[in-house]
């Protein structure tokens, strides 16, 4: 194999480059692919085959390559890619990879992939003559036009008015003319999202291989590839060539190779033909009605065994066997969008049947038109078919296909799943029709009986880094922070992610551990006071003349009877009767409520309200607005909460008689207009202070300044969780899982019993929802007060059972309770509400431990502490 002295339409001989392959420096030219550079430098072996470790070389000149796979490590990184798809740049470093890549531990080098969005009238996929003609035609109609070409060649594509993208692969065509393009330009990769009114597929055709013995040996190549390496890259892949063909196109290859200086023998499976006659007249040697039975050679082709009529055989010397088993329209994209196929007997291939979406057109060789006719040879017969390769990248042979059929697999879809044929990077594009024909042949069915297997996007591999684009690292997902966030950072808070929010998890002092910090914060709230940033609470304002009537339908308890300036805790259920979210409703005015939701549930609840308003009750005069980020919230909890708020110089009378539990008052705190709300998620006396978002930090600092002399501490979400669990307050989504009714949560009091309807009400009477013995919320206490159960631990009746052990439920929340000096847990247990006092067992890794079922309220069950 060598570079010819001239020729090569794709390369620029004035721009020499150097690439490194497996440590060896190779000379190449601008315009080469890695494959053409390897061949030009007489590198025949590219990688071992994935299963059998056989030597493998370049088989094709396009992205259908089934054989020569490499890793590119510089100047960009690609874990595994066909050598035929890698454009050569100076300094390129690559090595063979047997079809499976290895990801680096460090982020791979290479620029981020930019994403572009375009709207056009016409996109043409395929830069061959048909594609270029279609693009010209579209431009002449005045269409904005994109022309996509998967090779890095520009010469033929400079057409006025056409956006020509070279080195670009259409990885998928989707509904309504949506096309994703991967532009692989070195140093400037991009991903295009194109919406086109019209998609023209000019994807051409792919040559088929013919299975014969050792047809995977380096030096066996598709005939069209041998042609392309001479004409595009000026590389001659063999000096003594056997061209093995079923059709007349390969005669062009034979002539090109001969004219480039090779000695050529044509082995034609047909017995006659005009192309054959013309070739003979032109001085080419042709064996008619012959076949290549085997390639000879150890690590490279050194010869071939030919078989002819009446059992004749002949051995010839050769260093290249160029094979053409006919041509198949390249319809991966067409199939991916649901286009139908029919079998064309003359050309022995599947062609479009005209059933594609109306915005999709197929032109040129992809329609099958113009492709050569000829027989379809499933394989060259032999006693031993174990090196007749069908899918080179999966190392699967004719013998493997026949074994699968013998075992009863009578469809190519099943054979594909048994052998993995067609599932590799190349999706079996050179061998799909061949596989189907082997199956037909084995079953004694006519050609075309087996359809081609289905194709799905991406048509060609696309790196995750290209799909991710710039959406990685800090840009992966927005971070939401409260207006008090900077203070938390300065105070050394450790944060946790709650949805997109950054919430202060705990505020360690000095060398404190998580547990030490949480114990200190919890005890401060129980004994003195603490303040937590609760700004992330979801907040929705529900406004309008029918707001009260609407909320009565949304909540299980009545909100219309709530007086202005009062607050009520409520449950929302799904239609199935299961708890959907919880929170409080504050009545701000006759026609105005403020709802709070769980931090993670705000968007879901707003969507729920909108869905019912828009689709069922459009007659209700109600508007819902998210105000989560209008209000910063500092929650002051603890027996000294009243003193703390008083010390901020508020103008609100804080006495319980004037300002009782579950009411709110407007006033000022430290000069800031504030809505004070007497709600508590700790069971202690508490004031939630709601201020306009931009006053959050000022309010917070005022509370700290007033409170710290009284022993107030800031506390985080971990302490908040412990405090609420001590009181048995559930967290929807942690202690519930979408199968819990209010009754299951031991909160029947929250479901009203009058005749009025609310969402989910009817479901509470369904036999399964109303039955006894459902999984219900309970508390659990371990015998060993120091043992903290694992959240998620399974609960069983007896210890040490033999699997499968009937499961009673699981632990949903589990903590050390500093105020109780022992561990506590919440759990859901079958029939748990009626089993308080009984002992069951928690299955832990170290063995089953006994636990006592209790009420979920561990601390202050009489609720004496909420008024301070």
């Amino acid at each position: 194999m060598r570079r010819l002295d001239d020729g090569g339409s794709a390369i620029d001989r004035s721009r020499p480059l150097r690439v490194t392959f497996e440590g060896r420096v190779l000379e190449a030219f601008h315009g080469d692919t890695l494959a053409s550079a390897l061949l030009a430098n007489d590198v025949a072996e590219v990688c071992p085959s994935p299963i059998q470790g056989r030597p493998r070389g370049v088989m094709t000149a396009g992205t259908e390559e089934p054989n020569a796979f490499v890793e590119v490590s510089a100047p960009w990184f690609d874990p595994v890619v066909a050598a035929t798809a890698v454009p050569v740049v100076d300094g390129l470093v690559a090595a063979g990879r047997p079809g499976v890549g290895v990801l680096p531990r460090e982020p791979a080098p290479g620029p981020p992939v930019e994403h572009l969005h375009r709207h056009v009238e016409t996109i043409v996929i395929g830069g061959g003559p048909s594609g270029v003609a279609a693009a010209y035609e579209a431009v002449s109609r005045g269409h904005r036009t994109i022309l996509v070409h998967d090779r890095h060649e520009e010469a033929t594509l400079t057409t006025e008015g056409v956006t020509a993208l070279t080195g670009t692969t259409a990885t998928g065509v989707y509904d309504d003319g949506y096309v994703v393009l991967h532009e692989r330009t070195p140093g400037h990769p991009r991903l295009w999202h194109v919406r086109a009114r019209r998609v023209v597929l000019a994807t051409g055709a792919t040559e088929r291989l013919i299975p014969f013995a050792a047809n995977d040996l380096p030096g066996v190549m598709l005939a069209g590839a041998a042609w392309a390496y001479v004409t595009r890259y000026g590389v001659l892949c063999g000096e003594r060539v056997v061209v093995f063909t079923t059709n007349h196109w390969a005669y062009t290859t034979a002539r090109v190779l001969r004219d480039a200086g090779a000695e050529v023998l044509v082995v034609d499976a047909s017995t006659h033909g005009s192309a054959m006659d013309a070739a003979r007249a032109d001085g080419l040697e042709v064996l008619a009605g012959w076949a290549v039975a085997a390639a000879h050679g150890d690590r490279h082709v050194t010869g071939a065994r030919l078989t002819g009529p009446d059992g004749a055989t002949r051995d010839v010397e050769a260093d290249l066997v160029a094979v053409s088993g006919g041509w198949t329209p390249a319809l991966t994209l067409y199939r991916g969008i649901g286009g139908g196929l029919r079998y064309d007997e003359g050309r022995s291939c599947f062609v479009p049947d005209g059933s594609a979406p109306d915005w999709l057109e197929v032109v040129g060789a992809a329609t099958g038109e113009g492709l050569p006719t000829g027989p379809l040879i499933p394989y060259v017969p032999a006693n031993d078919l174990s090196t007749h390769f069908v899918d080179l990248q999966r190392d699967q042979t004719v013998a493997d296909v026949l074994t699968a059929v013998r075992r009863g697999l009578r469809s190519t879809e099943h054979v594909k799943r048994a052998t993995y044929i067609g599932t590799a990077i190349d999706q079996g594009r050179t061998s799909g029709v061949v596989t189907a024909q082997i199956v037909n042949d084995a079953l004694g069915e006519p050609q075309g009986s087996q359809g081609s297997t289905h194709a799905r996007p991406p048509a060609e591999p696309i790196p995750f880094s290209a799909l991710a684009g710039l959406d990685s690292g800090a840009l992966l997902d927005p971070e939401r922070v409260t207006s008090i966030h900077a203070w938390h950072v300065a105070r050394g808070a450790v944060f946790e992610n709650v949805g997109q929010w950054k919430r202060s998890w705990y505020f360690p002092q000095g060398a404190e551990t998580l547990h030490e910090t949480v114990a200190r914060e919890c005890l401060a709230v129980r004994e003195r006071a603490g303040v937590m940033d609760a700004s992330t609470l979801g907040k929705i304002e529900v406004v309008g003349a029918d707001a009260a009537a609407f909320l009565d339908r949304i909540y299980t308890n009545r909100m219309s009877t709530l007086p202005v300036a009062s607050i009520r805790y409520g449950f929302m259920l799904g239609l199935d009767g299961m708890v959907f979210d919880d929170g409080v409703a504050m009545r701000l005015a006759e026609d105005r409520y403020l709802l709070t939701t769980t931090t993670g549930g705000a968007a879901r609840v707003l969507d729920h309200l909108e869905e019912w308003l828009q689709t069922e009750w459009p007659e209700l005069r109600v508007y819902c607005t998210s105000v989560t980020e209008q209000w910063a919230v500092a929650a002051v909890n603890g027996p000294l909460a009243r003193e703390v708020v008083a010390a901020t110089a508020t103008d609100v009378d804080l006495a319980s008689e004037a300002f009782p539990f579950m009411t709110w008052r407007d006033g000022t705190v430290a000069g800031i207009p504030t809505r004070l709300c007497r709600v508590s998620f700790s069971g202690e006396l508490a004031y939630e202070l709601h201020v306009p978002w931009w006053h959050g930090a000022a309010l917070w600092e005022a509370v700290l300044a007033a409170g710290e002399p009284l022993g107030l501490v800031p506390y985080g979400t971990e302490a908040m969780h412990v405090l609420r669990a001590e009181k048995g307050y559930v967290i929807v989504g942690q202690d519930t899982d979408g199968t819990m009714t209010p009754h299951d949560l031991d909160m029947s009091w929250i479901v009203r019993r009058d005749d009025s309807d609310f969402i989910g009400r009817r479901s509470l009477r369904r036999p399964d929802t109303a039955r006894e013995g459902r999984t219900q919320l309970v508390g659990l206490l371990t015998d060993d007060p120091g043992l903290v159960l694992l959240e998620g631990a399974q609960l069983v009746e007896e210890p040490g059972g033999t699997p499968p052990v009937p499961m009673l439920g699981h632990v949903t929340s589990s903590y050390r309770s500093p105020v109780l000096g022992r561990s506590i847990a919440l759990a859901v247990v079958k029939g748990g509400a009626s089993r308080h006092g009984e002992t069951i067992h928690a299955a832990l890794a170290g063995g089953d431990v006994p636990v006592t079922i209790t009420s979920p309220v561990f601390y202050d069950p009489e609720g004496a502490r909420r008024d301070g």
Partner: protein
Amino acid sequence: MLLIRCPWCGPRDEVEFRYGGQAHVVYPADPEALTDEGWADYLFMRDNPKGLFRERWVHSAGCRRWFNAVRDTASHRLVATYRVDEEPPA
């Protein structure tokens, strides 16, 4: 990716929308009057035709309005979209 014509915003990419199942399933006037079977039928049972299907979508990353569509479930083509207060196209 479908190109969906929101009745309020015009044609937009499918990623801006969320699917809402079968349309014109009306919330019963008096759920308590229904038998368990009747309620289960409303709650769980939906049509699943091959061919034209009236279904709900919401433009969740746009105007956040619900609307109805007619989609051919065999070809995955959206044939029409219409507002919730409009009659379905014939």
